[in-house]
């Protein structure tokens, strides 16, 4: 018993507690309205169900949040990630080519460039975009929100230039596996997230880079005085964020089988920022929580599902969403919780 209470106490006082609690809460609410909410069926060897849908739909946001978490930890922000998703989609779609080739009434799968080349091309372009952001922030010294505003706006233009203003429809089926394929019964894109997440966590925690990112985010002057090259660290965080947005763009493009410069990744930057914040990483930089950001992405998706389950009229659903997220953010604040407990006369829980 004692051991369990120690573990509970540790879990309760960790930053991950409130995000997890919020997620569990919404899942339970769904269970109450829909008794079969957690049911997972097996169809054609794939797992189907609400939970799988939630996971699958949050994958692009999860991918973006991995990079964005590091950027936010350096006291920065990147609002161009949604536009980078559009650029990545556009590049990969154009490089694969939107040709439907029929031979004797059967479709033949052809690509302009081999698929791996197209994928690498898209990731290279978004990484370069990340370098642009990183250069503006770390070398030129422009405020992050303004620096990334440039690609936030211009990025969609670039995406449309690449697709020459058209929506490129894809017919090359092997590429669709990325966003809508299944492996061992689970969406393939989930493996991509897990792969990127594990590699990132490994690099961040097994090299000194995680500590350097945090120290630069908390106190750039003191970090510089300790011999840390803050500029380089900030630069590479933006590059990595561009890279992650690129992967998200591939998944999005593969999933909707087309590249739309105007709408791919639209408003994703806001959901991604929200995921990071819900996950416990502060916008004022410093300590960061990659797992928390993943939970944050799941919360946002679950919340959307919950709002649908409640049949909230579409015209007010955004307001409801905003209100609920507001409450979650407040609950994460220790100060607010203390005040709340005092008001309701409850016992103050030592955290």
């Amino acid at each position, binding site marked *: 018993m004692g051991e369990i209470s120690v573990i509970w106490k540790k879990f309760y006082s960790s930053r991950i507690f409130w995000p997890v609690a919020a997620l569990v809460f919404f899942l339970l609410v769904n269970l109450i309205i829909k008794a079969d909410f957690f049911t997972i069926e097996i169809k054609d060897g794939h797992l189907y169900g609400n939970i799988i849908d939630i996971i699958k739909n949050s994958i692009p946001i999860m991918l973006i949040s991995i990079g964005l978490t590091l950027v936010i930890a350096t006291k920065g922000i990147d609002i161009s990630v949604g536009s980078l998703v559009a650029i990545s989609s556009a590049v990969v779609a154009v490089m694969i080519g939107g040709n439907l080739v029929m031979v004797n009434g059967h479709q033949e799968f052809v690509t302009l460039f081999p698929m791996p080349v197209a994928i690498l091309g898209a990731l290279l372009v978004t990484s370069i975009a990340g370098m642009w952001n990183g250069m503006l922030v770390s070398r030129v010294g422009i405020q992050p929100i303004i620096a990334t505003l440039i690609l936030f706006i211009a990025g969609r233009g670039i995406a449309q230039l690449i697709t020459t203003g058209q929506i490129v429809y894809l017919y090359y089926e092997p590429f669709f596996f990325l966003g809508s394929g299944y492996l061992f019964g689970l969406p393939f894109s989930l493996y991509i997230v897990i792969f990127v997440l594990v590699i990132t966590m490994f690099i961040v925690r097994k090299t*000194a880079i995680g500590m*350097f990112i945090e*120290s630069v985010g908390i106190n750039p002057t003191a970090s*510089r005085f300790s*011999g840390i090259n803050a500029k380089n660290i900030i630069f590479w965080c933006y590059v990595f964020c561009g890279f992650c947005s690129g992967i998200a763009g591939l998944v999005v493009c593969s999933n909707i089988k087309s590249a739309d410069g105007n709408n791919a990744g639209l408003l994703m930057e806001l959901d991604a920022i929200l995921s990071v914040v819900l996950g416990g990483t502060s916008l004022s930089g410093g300590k960061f929580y990659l797992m928390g950001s993943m939970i944050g992405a799941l919360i946002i998706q679950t919340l959307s599902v919950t709002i649908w389950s409640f049949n909230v009229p579409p015209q007010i659903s955004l307001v409801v969403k905003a209100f609920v997220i507001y409450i979650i953010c407040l609950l994460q604040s220790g100060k607010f919780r203390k005040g709340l407990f005092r008001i309701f006369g409850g016992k103050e829980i030592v955290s």
Partner: protein
Amino acid sequence: MPDNSKGPILEMKGINKSFPGVKALSGVDFRLFRGEVHALMGQNGAGKSTLIKVITGVNRQEAGEIRLGGKLIRPDSPLDAQRLGISTVYQEINLCPNLSVAENIYIGRQPIRFGKIDWKEMNDKSNKLLSTLNVSIDVTQLLSSYSVAIQQMVAIARVLDISAKILILDEPTSSLDENEVKLLFGVLKKLRDNGLAILFVTHFLDQAYEISDRITVLKNGNKEGEYISRDLAKVELISKMLGKELSEFSYSQKETVINTEGKKIRDSKEVLLKAENLARKGSIAPVDLDISRGEILGFAGLLGSGRTETARLLFGIDKADQGDIFIKGKKKNMNNPSNAINAGLGFCPEDRKVEGIIDQLSVRENIILALQGKKGIFKNMPMKKQQETAENLIKMLGIITTGTEQEVRRLSGGNQQKVMLARWLATDPEILILDEPTRGIDVGAKLEIMELVLNLAKKGMALLFISSEIDEVVRCSSKVEVFKDREKINELTGGDIDVNSIMHIIAGGN
């Protein structure tokens, strides 16, 4: 000359103000007369800025009263204070650089004619106003196109036009050159002769003497005294600011040991660090210095005298305009701190909160930060090694913490300071710069740190010890460079080092 006949225009009695953990002002009395320039002086943390903040309504005193022209006042915001006639021009000028001079003077009170701003009248009035301050410039130009000195005049013109009975200037000369200072003083004298009461905060001794009629000295939140400037000898003023009578420097037994030890260590002739002609415009005039193995070099001087500025050049925080730095005889470029660290230097900065600790990180992370920075990103120290390093240093320096994983911001000031020292000791530097390592910590901890400094020197480290407590510098240095007004003005060695002679050097006599 001060007009004392009507009594002081501003009178403060028994002002108390504390912040969490510090008593910033305790029972301070202060008076200001019409037609005088009154200099407020004191070391860092003496309470100068707090006193001003109380007068201008930024902070509220916990006890005591303020009377303006005999009437009790209690300003609760700078705007409120301004309405009462108390105007302040801050060190960082708070005007709008992207508006014209005239707009800056009349912002929020533009003359209106037929519902529109009357630009002509605004410009004319601005011209007239500035000419009373002997400034003639094109008032339609952007404020940012003029020098800091002119911008300051504009700020003064603005507050005067809003009708000021009292003008407060907070370190107005810190970014001005000699001619600009003269210009400013000319204006201040004129305003004084017109009957304005001027409160002038500065840390430049000569300027205080040049412009002020009366000086109030604060020390550690207490009023040390109020003096007529021309009756107060410079040496006396310095000793008032340091809060000790010249004869009062008596040592306890432990301190005597430190004192003699400090003088002894200077046998090695191996010069580890040497600077030639090192200078940076606006921060320090060319300076030569060297430190040998096992030697403690002290920097003495008041705040802003150039001691920290020199250390920043040595450590590559600021880039020198001229001069060379040699480490063990080899010329090194110090373009950033990381160059300096790789050359074997360490630097405990003056401002612990801003330049030192990473407050949300653990004690362990704070300790290994510089070492890890030296090793680079990919040569990560294993957790076990990190903890070992941290634990050893915690034990060695006697840092009081619940463990290696305690957040460093939960530690007391003295312990945070020791964590800073630990960070640099972990990198095993050959040359260690300590800028005010004893600031804001209690007496016991101060002695501990000085003992530690001596032990490090004994082991062969070269140390640069900077402190505004002159007696500390005297006690543990075998050579002292004396700084004044951004210039190294003298060097004392061995037996010549004593508080008295340093004070006299700073005061300008010999």
